[in-house]
């Protein structure tokens, strides 16, 4: 899929037909489409949370605390008398936000590192990939725990911690693609017309690595949401009283005997988001790489 460096109408048509082709392959996969629908619904739920939630996320009702699901509170109330359904709806905001920003951090830094080392090769490649080996030698969630533990537990640090721990996987993927692209003729052509290295990386190398980056990012959002929820569950992420699924679970855990709905629903929400992203990501990989499909 060599792209010419000057935008021409032909290129645009080609790109559109490519997206169309990917969509045609994707929509055959019912699971992937279902996953996409769930993701879109959850995103809409997060965006329109103030209109959808029956109560405010931190509004304490005068009614009974730890009450079981009822007509008034479909998913019950927590130990402060807050409506759980509303908190779960608002919680989608934080989870999706953290997931996307963390992957953004990982993909931008990792992708750039991978493209640079793949393009230049040699010593730069050696040094940076050894640094990635170091990052990979520490289990991802433990690295994130160390970063949050050191910087302090809050939303921004959580996103940084999860994002940084995801850098190596993007660096590796993009590097592999960059290595295979850099020797090709259209890169040499770009060099011959005097394009700068930065321009070649941005216009020739990166667009050709997009397919694996997109697939990895989709799966990456799933794993970032899981890590962020795990950290919040451990008390090292989003702090109460914010409505976040992981910290809701950790609060509900103390009342598991009398109010099991407080641990069931937040965890179920995490599971649904992550499952939808994973199914969609899988389908996307198959659609982008027809070789893998039988």
């Amino acid at each position, binding site marked *: 899929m060599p792209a010419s460096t000057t935008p021409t109408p032909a290129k645009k048509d080609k790109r559109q037909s490519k997206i169309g082709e990917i969509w045609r392959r994707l929509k055959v996969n019912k699971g992937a489409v279902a996953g996409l629908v769930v993701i879109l619904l959850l995103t809409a739920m997060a965006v329109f949370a103030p209109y959808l939630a029956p109560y405010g996320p931190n509004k304490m009702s005068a009614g009974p605390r730890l009450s079981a699901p009822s007509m008034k509170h479909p998913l019950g109330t927590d130990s402060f008398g807050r409506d759980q359904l509303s908190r779960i709806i608002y919680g989608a905001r934080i989870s999706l936000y953290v997931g996307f920003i963390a992957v953004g951090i990982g993909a931008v830094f990792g992708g750039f590192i991978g493209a640079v080392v793949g393009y230049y090769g040699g010593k730069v490649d050696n040094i940076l990939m*050894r*640094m990635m*080996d*170091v*990052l*990979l*030698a*520490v*289990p*991802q*969630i*433990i*690295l994130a*725990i*160390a*970063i949050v*533990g*050191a*910087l*302090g537990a809050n939303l921004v640090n959580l996103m940084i911690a999860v994002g940084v721990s995801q850098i190596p996987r993007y660096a590796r993927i993009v590097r592999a693609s960059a290595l295979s692209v850099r020797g090709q003729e259209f890169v040499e052509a770009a060099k011959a017309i005097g394009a700068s290295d930065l321009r070649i990386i941005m216009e020739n190398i990166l667009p050709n690595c997009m397919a694996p980056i997109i697939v990895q990012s989709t799966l990456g959002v*799933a794993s970032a949401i*899981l890590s962020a*929820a*795990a950290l919040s*569950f*451990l*008390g*090292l992420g989003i702090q109460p009283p914010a409505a976040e699924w*992981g910290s809701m*679970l950790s609060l509900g*855990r103390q009342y*598991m*005997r009398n109010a*099991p709905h407080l*641990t*069931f629903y*937040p*965890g*179920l929400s*995490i*599971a649904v988001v*992550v*499952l939808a992203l*994973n*199914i969609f990501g*899988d389908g996307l990989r198959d659609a982008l790489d027809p070789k893998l499909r*039988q």
Partner: protein
Amino acid sequence: MLRYIFRRIVFLIPVLIGVSILIFAIIRLAPGDPAETLLGPSATAQDLQELREQLGLNKSLVTQYFTFLTNTLKGDFGRSIRTNNPVLEELLDRFEPSLILALLSMTLAVAVGIPLGILAALRQNTWMDTLCNLAALLGFSLPGFWLGLMLMLLFSIMIPILPSSGYGAWQQLIMPTLVLSTNTMAVIARMTRSSMLEVVRQDYVRTAKAKGLSGRLILVRHILSNVLIPVVTVAGLHFGHMLGGVVITETVFSIPGVGRLIIDAIRFQDYPVVQGGILFFAFCLSLVNLGVDLIYALLDPRIKAQYRAG
């Protein structure tokens, strides 16, 4: 082969030194003064100063790092700020539950994941295949801490047949092992299935069939040995993920392992323990990866040949 092993071990050293720099940097550049945390708000300036000197906190970061590195190489990880015991001793004390949990979970994941993947591939596009795929996706997506709490709810509260937490009796290991193995089991099953589907279509399998070998013989001699190569790699790579899971599982089930130790140490800003603990995990992970590479070389004669020649 020996040369290969030797090279791989030498290669480990810079990575571990890198990890020690990384962990040291993350923890020391953090805001907050361990001396203040330790002595509490009532401490006088002089007390703080004395403690900083005692802990070596008043020296430059580079000096502190080299002291840390040389001590670590001698097997001295420093002393815990909280308990004043040597860090290495604390780590080794807590090592047994973590090791047992990880080994049991890996065994279960392999013992269930590989047959499941083979079954799914042999019955490709049947309901059994769909079911296996679905189960794998689910296992891959469920948050471990939630799964743990739900098992606890089911088997300790609603039908009280298993102890909800703690360590010591074998019953207390059942739920944590299930929780910790789920994710790896799913990954192994998926990898086995896709690797199997690929190998089945290879020419040498067709040749074996054409020679009239029995299905069982082809499966064992020609297919499985080739299927296992990527599966071993993935299982090894996933070991890091499992070590992360150890931290969470130990917290959920109150198991006194290394993971729990690290979490507690972070809360108390007990940085020698955090440093030692993470370095310990990185060391374990590197050793496992080394082991995986060696198994890999044993399983795949092409790799062995490469290093014999080189």
